[in-house]
């Protein structure tokens, strides 16, 4: 199988991730729950992942909280700072991991709408909408559907200037684009561990500038004599037993990213993106969504084939893509693709130019059959 669905989860991981997960499962018990070697091995595994994450994302170890995934992290972030009914500014490209929690707490959501791939217009839209009385801004760094890289540095500067807390959804950018808690001045940055950081599923990270409010209450191995959750990080946000083997694997994934460097991984994915754009632009019945500020994610739709049918056709020929609304209906509304959906291909550091050439061969067969 040729795997072009890394925007959902990276399937190919560094070999070290598999080895470390297995080793941790055999040797690590619970973090902060004992002083015996297995507990201390777990504590070391988790702490070293915090250190690596802090190194990659410019944060202190105590600002790194582990979560189950980006959705979990975003829920903590949103529910920490958005009061019920509060005014929240979002981009028009948010994932349901942002829109559903906001809806659930009855936030007054105002979209800073802008066309795809227009950073200037996106920034202008935020400038208009970030008005006094705004409780928070929540913005994706990269659209999971179209790969559009939003001008997050500019949005962060605006938020800082106007004193509005910012939550960044770095689900599609962590590991490929610069993400800095300190420089952005964001209140929170949420990300999964299983995409561009090459960790196992069931891992996520929430970077917290000034702590947060717990979504779950329970044991933390600290302040045990009290009914209240600890008021210090990271314990405040990490109730219950950690996914130690997953976090150990995530550390190996982050090590890989640090070694390869996000810049080089991004450049590699850009090369594949350009190659795929060239392949698909040869078909007149396809509509491609491509622009200047685009990461390694490419959406397209066929005029005469349902996107799910097209996705199935690719799967039949051994190409894994993702079709439909990609859990981001608002992004599709913004791009005018809500009714049709799109087929999305997305790359990782493990994809090759040869795979894109094989994809080109499959495209010739799929589109000839229409």
């Amino acid at each position, binding site marked *: 199988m040729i795997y072009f669905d890394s925007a959902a989860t990276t399937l190919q991981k560094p070999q070290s991730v598999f080895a470390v997960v297995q080793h941790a499962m055999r040797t690590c018990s619970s*973090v*902060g729950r*004992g*002083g015996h070697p297995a507990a*201390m091995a777990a*504590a*070391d595994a988790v*702490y070293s992942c*915090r250190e690596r994450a802090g190194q990659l994302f410019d944060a202190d*170890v*105590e600002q790194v909280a582990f979560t189950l995934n980006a959705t979990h992290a975003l829920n903590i972030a949103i529910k920490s700072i958005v009061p019920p009914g509060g005014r929240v500014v979002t981009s028009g490209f948010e994932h349901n991991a942002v829109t559903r929690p906001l809806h659930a707490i009855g936030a007054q959501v105002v979209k800073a709408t802008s066309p795809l791939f227009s950073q200037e217009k996106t920034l202008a839209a935020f400038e208009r909408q970030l008005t006094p009385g705004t409780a928070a801004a929540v913005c994706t760094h990269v659209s999971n559907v179209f790969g559009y890289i939003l001008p997050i540095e500019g949005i962060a500067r605006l938020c800082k200037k106007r004193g509005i807390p910012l939550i960044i959804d770095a689900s599609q950018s962590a590991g490929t684009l610069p993400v800095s808690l300190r420089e952005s001045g964001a209140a929170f940055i949420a990300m999964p561990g299983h995409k561009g950081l090459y960790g196992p599923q069931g891992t996520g990270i929430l970077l917290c500038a000034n702590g947060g409010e717990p979504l779950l209450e329970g044991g*933390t*191995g*600290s*302040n*045990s*004599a*009290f009914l209240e959750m*600890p008021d*210090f990080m*990271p*314990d405040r946000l990490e109730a219950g037993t950690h996914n130690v083997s997953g976090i150990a694997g995530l550390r190996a994934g982050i090590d890989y990213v640090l070694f390869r460097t996000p810049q080089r991984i991004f450049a590699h994915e850009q090369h594949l993106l350009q190659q795929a754009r060239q392949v698909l632009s040869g078909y007149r019945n396809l509509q491609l969504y491509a622009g200047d500020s685009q990461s390694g994610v490419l959406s397209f739709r066929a005029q005469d084939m349902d996107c799910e049918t097209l996705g199935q056709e690719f799967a039949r020929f051994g190409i894994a893509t993702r079709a439909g609304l990609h859990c981001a209906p608002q992004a599709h509304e913004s791009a005018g693709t809500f009714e049709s959906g799109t087929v999305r291909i997305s790359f990782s550091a493990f994809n090759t130019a040869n795979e894109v050439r094989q994809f080109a061969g499959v495209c010739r067969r799929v589109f000839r059959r229409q």
Partner: protein
Amino acid sequence: MYDYFFTFRTVTSAQSAAKTLTRAGIRNAMARTARQVQQMGCGYSIRVSANNYNAAKDALRHAGDRFSKIYMKLPDGSWREV
């Protein structure tokens, strides 16, 4: 000579402090805080020898590692807050 124990509220803070001491060339050992001296219930401590006590305290303060308390363990097994 007695050993000194710096107590921490959370394992993460204790680990950061242990790293600071190791970087400063100060031998240390991390362990669970004795129940008798737990302020809030459950926590971790870092043990250093009396010879290294002052250097350890300075290194932790300089690095911004916030410990909760410092204890000495006496020969009879009791604890004295420093």
